[in-house]
């Protein structure tokens, strides 16, 4: 990944006026995406993600701010220049937006119509694109005959027809089942690697971000509330919303809910403490649990464990009940912290439990 900015949004405001009501969909957002990034923009629906990325290819004109893509001031372009610029910014959508009256090959060919290529060159290109997304045998089918995942592959092929350098994915996997979602994300990652495609991925699912992004921004009510590289955001989230997204993605929320529900059976007191251990990178490999017992005679009962591999960096989460003398427990926690492990003391929310 180079550090050359390919998309630069500065102080973007998008305000809608509708029937006397003013809605600030995007407020003072700046965003820089570097060439080769897979940049995730996460947020719940209505957070302004889609509006923000539509500013990149000026499908949405910002109320204020500046937009630079590939060194071009997008807002200064004439409508003709804008059309040329758009051919270098591909886009895929939640509902695929294929043309039902055209065959698969014809859908992929659509962006090439009226261009410089001859008919045979276009046919060659379409065949190549369909091969790239693995749909060669569906060329003469119509969209209605395809599954959701296949339709999205066609949409990707169409978006790539004019060899764009950027691909905007607007909730492209949100209408797909988990298995198909993974396959589409895999494809995006492959295109990023093989073609050097820069991807801006909007989603409400942190799982999708976790799979392929190297950077992530979290949006809430029109603003980016937190951003950074994937591992940092996942290991040290600051905002409550970010933590919420991550805990949902790593399924810690679900695990905690179950644990809290039967908290009384854990018999928590001064000698039995419920803690969450979180570690990043190499520390994962140290035989921590054994070490704690050997040094402090602290017994750790693992209730839940999860290791994520983010950008080739392991990120581990353990929820354990540690049993031992109170002072030994304190020493054990200090040992963990010295080893670079983050400890969170968990308090079951049920009344009447320690």
């Amino acid at each position, binding site marked *: 990944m180079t550090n050359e900015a390919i998309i630069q949004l500065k102080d973007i405001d998008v305000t809608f006026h509708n029937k006397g009501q003013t809605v600030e969909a995007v407020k003072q957002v700046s965003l820089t995406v570097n060439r080769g990034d897979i940049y995730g923009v996460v947020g719940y629906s209505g957070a302004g993600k889609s509006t923000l990325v539509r500013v990149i*290819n000026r*499908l949405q004109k910002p109320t204020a701010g500046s937009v630079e893509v590939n060194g071009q001031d997008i807002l200064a372009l004439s409508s003709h220049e804008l059309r040329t610029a*758009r051919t270098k910014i591909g*886009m895929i959508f939640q509902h695929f*937006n294929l043309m*039902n009256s055209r065959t698969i090959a014809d859908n992929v060919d659509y962006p090439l119509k009226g261009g410089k290529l001859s008919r045979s060159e276009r046919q060659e290109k379409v065949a190549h694109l369909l091969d790239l997304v693995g749909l060669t045998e569906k060329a003469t089918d119509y969209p209605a005959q395809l599954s959701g995942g296949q339709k999205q592959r066609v949409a990707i092929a169409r*978006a790539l027809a004019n060899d764009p350098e950027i691909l905007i994915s607007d909730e492209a996997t949100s209408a797909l089942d988990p298995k198909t979602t993974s396959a589409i994300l895999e494809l995006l990652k492959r295109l990023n690697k093989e073609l050097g495609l820069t991807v801006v991925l909007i989603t409400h699912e942190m799982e999708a971000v976790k799979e392929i992004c190297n950077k992530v921004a979290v949006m809430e009510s029109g603003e980016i509330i937190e951003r950074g590289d994937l591992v940092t955001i996942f290991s040290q989230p600051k905002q409550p919303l970010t933590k919420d997204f991550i805990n949902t993605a790593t399924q810690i929320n679900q695990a905690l809910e179950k644990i809290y529900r039967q908290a009384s059976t854990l018999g928590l007191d001064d000698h039995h403490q419920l803690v969450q251990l979180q570690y990043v990178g190499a520390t994962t490999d140290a035989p921590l649990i054994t070490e704690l017992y050997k040094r402090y005679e602290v017994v750790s009962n693992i209730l839940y464990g999860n290791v994520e591999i983010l950008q080739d960096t392991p990120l581990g989460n353990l929820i354990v009940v540690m049993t031992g003398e109170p002072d030994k427990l304190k020493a054990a926690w200090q040992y963990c912290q010295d080893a670079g492990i983050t400890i969170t003391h968990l308090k079951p929310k049920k009344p009447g439990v320690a």
Partner: protein
Amino acid sequence: MGWFAKYFPNAVTMKSEFIQATGETLYMTAITAIIAGVIGMAIGIGLIVTQPGGILENRIVYNILDKFVNLFRSIPFVILLAIIAPVTRLIVGTAIGTTAAIVPLVIGSAPFYARQIQNALAEVDRGVIEAAESVGSGPIAIIFRVYLKEGLADIIRSSVLTLISLIDLTAMAGAIGGGGLGNLAVNIGYNQFQIDVIFLAMLIILVIVFIIQLVGDWLARRVDHTA
């Protein structure tokens, strides 16, 4: 053909009149369909692209087209026939006759067709239009390669509907000497109490309508790939 002479005692002697009247009906329908088709299509597309949120949003143009269509759609056709006579004389040179009938027929059916086209094109998914914009398509490309292509099945269905209502109008145009099957049915059949003439004229019109409907449905099915 004995049964025909038996049940159609007057019509059987009017073979040439019926052939001529059928020809006049088809002539008025065809010429009007072409002219009103082009005008209605243009206005319908104009309405779709200039409507709020359209690809060439323009409140003024949209309102003018919208009001124009509403105005001409609310005038009853028989009254339009009379009101429009001076204009017809200006264009055709006479206000009477088959060709003269085409002017009010166009004015009566083009706004109806425009509304039908607008409705048909409104069915084209907004997301598909956005996808076309995102790959760099301009307004002309979007109109011809997306709207008209994606909306084709619905356009065919609307055109059938318009054609059939147009045949209805041609029957009325007979009132100003436009000729055609409607004229035959009213002037000879009705006024001279020759019920069989009315009946045969109606049968011929029904056959024409059926054929248009069948061909239209077949075409629409052929171009429809949504299911």
